[in-house]
């Protein structure tokens, strides 16, 4: 009897207007989202490969100077093949480069894959240069031009600014265009799919009660729980058809665009199952409200309110829990200077006892400066760690609050499966820092 119920529900839904409209919506979104993602991220995949290749070759043939100043110390984050399920919104989470040198701990910042290609890398860490200028004392006219270059080699007047990443950085681009959610799998299932689940179930019981067919069904030898189970199974399998269709289409598009999603078969299997689990929540919620209210229109109103609160309002409120912290209170540059002042006062006596303070051929002096630089390094490192921890903990706090909303819960679990998102980013940064220490 349940099976007859399920069959009837499925047929009913499949032939309905809402089903066809939702399938059109989902297909449209899947096509736009997947093509957009692969379009955007192909360069990431490519430049990651290039970078690894180049690093290997440089390691084999590169000169010491190149190793010390060049790209050997730049790290690229490995792109995830399933990234389109939960697209990372942030430039910072994307390919990331950490650059450091003998006196400074890694500064973490962004670079676009396009501009991070080996010849075009324009990363400017003038700290060491600055320290050098302090001792070298440029002449009067020199300070007018203040020679600076990415590696301190050529003369570039800084008054026109050194383009760090690009003439028009991605972060500025992203803040200038209309703000939007990413059209990824989480958007399709989490926002459109959940609305679809509500639309399929809002009149499941109240509608039948209104039209009087409920009495007819109950007069058949079927238990009430059986009826409910049949409704749930029917709706969820219809949703599964729509979602599965979208999933297959998106995989086909990915394959055509050359994104190697098959490298992660576990996620390919698990993400639809997870989506089903998420939609089940909305289906059963829809049935609950539908059985509570007499008319289908009032149950729809309540469901739409629940949807708006879960999907739109709750993530917004949790964003307010995010503590805006100010990063710019003191930059790495000023911090190093401060540390150096501190160290100099601490070592004042020893420095005055040194025979020749600038002659590094003197063993005693050289030893002193080695110790000095090492100390400076650890101090700056500690400070940089503190900052990073502050950002990360603040981010984690906001994420804890965001878990109030089922959509965000779904997003985080898909992120975990797809290998994207904040925790992965944090892991990567920590790895790089650990490597640097080694």
């Amino acid at each position, binding site marked *: 009897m349940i099976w007859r119920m399920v069959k009837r529900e499925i047929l009913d839904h499949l032939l309905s207007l*809402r089903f066809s*409209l939702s399938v059109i*919506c989902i297909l449209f*979104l899947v096509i*736009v*989202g997947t093509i957009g993602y692969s*379009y*955007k991220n192909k*360069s990431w995949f490519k430049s990651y490969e290039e970078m690894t290749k180049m690093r290997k070759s440089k390691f084999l043939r590169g000169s010491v100077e190149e190793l010390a100043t060049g790209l050997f110390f730049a790290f690229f984050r490995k792109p995830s093949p399933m990234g389109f399920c939960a697209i990372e*919104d*942030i430039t*910072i989470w994307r390919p990331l480069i950490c650059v450091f040198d003998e006196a400074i701990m890694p500064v973490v*910042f962004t670079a676009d894959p396009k*501009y991070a290609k080996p010849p075009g890398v324009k990363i400017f860490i003038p700290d060491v240069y600055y320290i050098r200028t302090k001792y070298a*004392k440029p*002449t*009067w*006219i020199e*300070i007018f*031009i*203040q020679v600076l270059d990415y590696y301190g080699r050529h*003369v*570039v*007047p800084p*008054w026109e*600014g050194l383009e*760090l990443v*690009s*003439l028009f950085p991605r*972060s*500025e681009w992203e*803040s*200038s*265009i*209309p*703000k*939007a959610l*990413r*059209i990824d799998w989480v958007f399709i299932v989490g*926002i459109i799919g959940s609305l679809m689940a509500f639309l399929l179930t809002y*009149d499941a019981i109240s509608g039948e009660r209104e039209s009087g067919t409920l009495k007819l069904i109950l007069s058949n030898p079927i238990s009430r729980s059986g009826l409910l189970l049949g409704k749930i199974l029917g709706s969820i399998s219809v949703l599964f058809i729509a979602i599965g269709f979208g999933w297959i289409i998106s995989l086909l598009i990915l394959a055509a665009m050359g994104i190697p999603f098959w490298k992660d078969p576990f996620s390919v299997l698990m993400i639809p199952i997870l989506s089903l689990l998420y939609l089940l929540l909305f289906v059963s919620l829809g049935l609950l409200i539908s059985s509570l209210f007499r008319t289908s229109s009032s149950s*729809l*109103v309540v469901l*739409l309110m629940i949807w*708006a609160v879960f999907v*739109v*309002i709750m*993530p*917004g*409120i949790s*964003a*307010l829990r995010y503590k*805006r912290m100010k*990063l*710019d209170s003191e930059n*790495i*540059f000023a911090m190093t200077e401060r540390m150096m002042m501190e160290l100099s006062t601490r070592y004042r006596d020893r420095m005055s006892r040194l025979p020749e303070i600038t002659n590094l051929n003197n063993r005693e002096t050289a030893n002193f400066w080695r110790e000095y630089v090492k100390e400076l390094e650890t101090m700056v490192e500690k400070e940089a760690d503190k900052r990073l921890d502050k950002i990360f903990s603040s981010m984690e706090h*906001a994420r804890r609050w965001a878990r109030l909303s089922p959509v*965000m819960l779904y*997003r985080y679990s898909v992120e975990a499966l797809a290998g994207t998102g904040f925790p992965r980013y944090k892991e990567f940064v920590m790895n790089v820092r650990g490597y640097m220490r080694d």
Partner: protein
Amino acid sequence: MKGIIEVFRKELIVHILSFRFASMILVCQILIPLSIYMGIIKYKERVESYNTDRTRFVEEHTKRIRIMRSWSHACPESYILGAWGVQRKPEPLSFLAEGCGTRLGHFVRVNHKHVPYTAAWGVVLENPEFARIEGIPIDVFVKDLQSFDLALILQIVLGLFAILLVHDSISGEKEGGTLKLLASQGISRGSILMGKYIGAMAALVIPFTIAILLGMIYIPLEIGKEIGSDEILRILLLYISSILYLSVFTTIGILISSATRRSSTSLIFGLFVWVFLVVIWPNIIGFVAESMYNKIPYDEDSIRKKIDLIRKDYSRDVEAIEARYPFLKDIPFGFETNDPENPSAKLRDPFSPDRIHLIHQLKSIAREVELIGIKHSERIWEVRKEYLERYPYKYIKLSWALNKISPAGAYYNLTSIIARTDWGSYLLFLDEVREYRKVLQRWVIDDSISSARWFTDTEGIMRIPEFKQGEEKVVDGLLRAGPDILILFLANILCFIIAYVRFALYDVR
């Protein structure tokens, strides 16, 4: 006319007694005051950070100026004056419509030899270029959590309610058979439609108005000082534009309702139209625009080459000056020397006979170098401007224009223009800063270099002309928002006319 009032009264009473109206009142009274309150808190945070930045910036600057002894200390390339800049004030109405203004940078480095073209996210004192890395807007970390301003709530929740209120206004009466009764009362069809429209609008506007008034209680308590008569006018305009936006969805709902036979069909159609216009379209435009970044034909390398050539010109010119005055090579940074034969020792020695002559010579050299720098910086700006207008700005404008296809996008743009938080206001701000730069330029060349002591005295440096952020007039803002207002009006009128035609053709039999 009498018919309209009759229908309007009936509709209003039906709406007010309905379940959706009750839930709408509840949702509005909770969400709108909450969002206004949260927005005010955010705005106050922004103001606080603006003030602390400002005081810190000025303090640091004064400290630095105190230690300098010569023009070479103060020269724009050194980190002392090189970091001079202006901040953008947070907009008071950003608590009603965040726009993209709150996400864009707010600190612009101003230097007489650098034409600003972008704003950084933080005040960076030492090396302005660090603004790009160090001042990364931390908000990017929470970009996947949405903002929560009044404009968003109106756009999403009240748009939904408008559809819900009117979806059965005609199709429901068709089903129930009361439409025939109504048509037989001698009321014209136009009056019926108009009465229904006004009734639904009244039912929508009442809860939303009460909620806004409730939310406004916070304003005198929290930020009373910042709200002047101009701001009140802007709030009124925001209110009117919100009504215009809600009326678009009401007319769309009436159109769908008059075009369908059954109320359930019209509901499903209405909801999908709403989902497409409010949820799908703006997000797709944003997403596609974001993806376009890599695909825009950025011929950055050629631009860089051009800029590098200009820079080479500059260093060649400066080298030529250096060659003309060979004694400059011997002058060390800060004129500090122990060598009595060094020209700077003559400079420092008040009894030296050559001193006055040397000072005049150095002054004229400095003036020459500064003028060359200004000339070349303007050349570089021309190159940059051409590039910006050809690529990024064009595509950003395109994305905003496409966003307006949906009334939600037009409404978003309209509110952010009224609240001065849109992208256009950011560009206006950059223009103002460029104007300010010219003032600074005059100050450097006329006041500082030609002042009495060395090249300047400490007081002269302290007298840097102040930047005053101009305020765009309301009328100018409305002119800028012209297309948005037009789109909303046209959508209203078009939908209403189609609904009328469809309804007039409806056969009562």
